[in-house]
C-alpha cells in the first residue's frame, strides 16, 4: 500500500477543505477503500477520515414522515434498528443479504452507495480497464463475462454496480444529500450512479470534494412496508455478490395495485429502476400474467454484453418471483436466509419454477 497523509476531520467544512487537495480520498468504514488500497487499485495521497464528524450517525424521522439515514450509520446498525426495519423491510433484507456481519458492522451508508464495481478485470491490475486508466481499453469485453451487465453498458465498460442496499433505495425514490465546496445539494438516487458511456471513470454525480451526508427516504416509501421484498440470486447460499437481484414494493388498495416499484441489481452499472414496468402494474390486480408482463417490460432493453444472455431471463424470473412474494405480504420475521429465492421455510411461498 502506498503511504498517505492522514487527516482526521472535525467538521464537514474541514473535511471538504482537506479533500480539495489533489489525490485526496474520504475514509469512513474502509471496507472497500482499504481493500482497494491494499490491491494497489486506488492510491490516494491523503485520506480524510470522516468517522469523527458529529451528527452523521443518526437515523432520523423527519416531520413530514421521511427518514434520513446519516452517511456514517453502519450497515449493521441500520439492520438492527427495529423501527427502520418495520418501515423499510426490503432495505433491511437487502442489507442482510450482502457481505458478512463483520463487513456490515464496519461499512457505512454512504460507503455502501459509493462502493466500486467488483468486475474481476477492474480488480486485476494486469488487465486493461477504462475505469482505472481511461482510454486503456476494457479487457472484460470478450473475457469471462457471466456476471457482467445486460443493461446500460457501453463498449468501454460492461461492469455492474454490486450493492444490494442500493437496489431498494432506487425503488423507493431515495434522495442523496450532498455537501461540498459550493454548498448543499440533492440528487435523486436512481440517477446518482452514472452509466459508463464513453467516460466509465466517472462513476457518480459527485463533484470534486463533495461528500455524501445522508440518504433520505421520502414519506411515501414507508407505504410499501406490507408488501415488499428483495430477492437475490447468488453463486452460493450466502456471502456472495448477486448474479441478479430485484427489489419490489406494492401498495395495494382494494385488491388492485395503487403503486408498484421495481428495481434490479447487478444488471447494470447503476441500480436499475424499471419505471416502464411499474407503469404496467398501476391499477391492475396482482396476477401471474400481470407480473410476467411487467418483468418483460423491465428487461425490454436488455442485451448481453458477452456470455451472459441467461441473466436476462433470470432477471425476468426474479422480478416475477419477487412480485409474487411481495403480493403475498412481507414476512413477519426476517427469513433465515435473507433474500434467498431458495429459502427453506414453507411460508416463503413461491415455487422454484416462477
Amino acid at each position, binding site marked *: 500500500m502506498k503511504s*498517505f497523509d492522514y487527516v482526521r476531520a472535525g467538521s464537514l467544512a474541514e473535511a471538504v477543505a482537506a479533500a480539495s487537495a489533489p489525490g485526496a480520498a474520504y475514509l469512513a468504514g*474502509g471496507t472497500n477503500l482499504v481493500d482497494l488500497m491494499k490491491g494497489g487499485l486506488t492510491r490516494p495521497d491523503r*485520506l480524510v477520515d470522516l468517522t469523527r464528524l458529529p451528527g452523521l450517525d443518526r437515523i432520523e424521522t423527519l416531520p413530514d414522515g421521511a427518514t434520513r439515514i446519516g452517511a456514517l450509520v453502519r450497515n449493521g446498525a441500520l439492520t438492527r434498528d427495529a423501527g427502520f426495519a418495520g418501515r423499510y423491510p426490503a432495505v433491511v433484507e437487502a442489507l442482510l443479504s450482502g457481505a458478512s*456481519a463483520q463487513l456490515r458492522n464496519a461499512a457505512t451508508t454512504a460507503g455502501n452507495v459509493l462502493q466500486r464495481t467488483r468486475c474481476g478485470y477492474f480488480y486485476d491490475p494486469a488487465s486493461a480497464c477504462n475505469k482505472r486508466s481511461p482510454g486503456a481499453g476494457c479487457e472484460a469485453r470478450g473475457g469471462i463475462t457471466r456476471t457482467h451487465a445486460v443493461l446500460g453498458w457501453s463498449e468501454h465498460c460492461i461492469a455492474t454496480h454490486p450493492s444490494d442496499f442500493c437496489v431498494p433505495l432506487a425503488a423507493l425514490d431515495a434522495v442523496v444529500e450532498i455537501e461540498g465546496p459550493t454548498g448543499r445539494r440533492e440528487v435523486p438516487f436512481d440517477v446518482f450512479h452514472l452509466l459508463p458511456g464513453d467516460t466509465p471513470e466517472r462513476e457518480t454525480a459527485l463533484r470534486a470534494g463533495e461528500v455524501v451526508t445522508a440518504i433520505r427516504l421520502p414519506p411515501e416509501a414507508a407505504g410499501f412496508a406490507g408488501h415488499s421484498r428483495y430477492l437475490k440470486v447468488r453463486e452460493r447460499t450466502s456471502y456472495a455478490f448477486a448474479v441478479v437481484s430485484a427489489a419490489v414494493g406494492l401498495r395495494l388498495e382494494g385488491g388492485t395495485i395503487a403503486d408498484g416499484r421495481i428495481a434490479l441489481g447487478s444488471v447494470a452499472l447503476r441500480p436499475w429502476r424499471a419505471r416502464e414496468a411499474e407503469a404496467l402494474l398501476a391499477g391492475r390486480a396482482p396476477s401471474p400474467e400481470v407480473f410476467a408482463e411487467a418483468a418483460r417490460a423491465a428487461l425490454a432493453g436488455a442485451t448481453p454484453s458477452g456470455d451472459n444472455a441467461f441473466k436476462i431471463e433470470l432477471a425476468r424470473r426474479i422480478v416475477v418471483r419477487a412480485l409474487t412474494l411481495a403480493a403475498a405480504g412481507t414476512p413477519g420475521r426476517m427469513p433465515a436466509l435473507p433474500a434467498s429465492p431458495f429459502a427453506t421455510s414453507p411460508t416463503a411461498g413461491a415455487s422454484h419454477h416462477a
Partner: protein
Amino acid sequence: MGLSIMSIPITLTVNGVRREIVLEDARVTLLDLLRERLDLTGAKKGCDRGQCGACTILVDGTRINACLALAVSHDGASLLTIEGLADGDVLHPVQAAFLDNDGFQCGFCTPGQILSAVALIGEGGLAEEGGPADPERVREGMSGNLCRCGAYAGITQAVLQAHAAMTHAAMHAPDVLPGGNLTEDAA
C-alpha cells in the same frame, strides 16, 4: 495537516487494558497492530482483504474484520480479542462449546470463529422467544468466517450449544461481566 511522516499517538483499550500507542505510519491496521506491536497473535491474518474472517475481533462490542480497520481511525476504541475472552482459567461458554463439539481441525480460523459466535449470540434473533437457536440462522450468521478444514458442522453445533448455555445462564445469572464472561460456569 498531513501526518504520514509524523508520529500519531492513539489510545486503545485492549482486553480491558488501556494502551498508549504511537503509530509511525498511518497504514497500520488493527490486525497488524495487535500481532506485531502488542504480541497478541490470536487474531489471524488469512486473506488480509476482508474475505475470510480469521481476523475477527470485537470493537466496541461489535465484530469486524481487523484487517480492513486502520488503527489510526480507531483511536479511543475498546478491543476484545481471543486472548481476553476467558475469565482466568474459566473458558467462555463459546470456547467450551467449540471444544465439546470439535468445532475446528487445524485451529487457524478458530479465534475468529469464536469471537464471531460471541457477537452473533449477543446480537440475538437466532431463536424464536425462548426456543432453541435455528441452525440455518447460525450458519447464515457465521458465513463471514471461512474454515478451510471444513469443520462447519461442528462449528454450527458449538454455536447452538453456546447459545443454549448462555441463554440459560442469562436467565439464572443475569449479571454478565462486561467482557461477556459469565459469573458462573455455564459450560
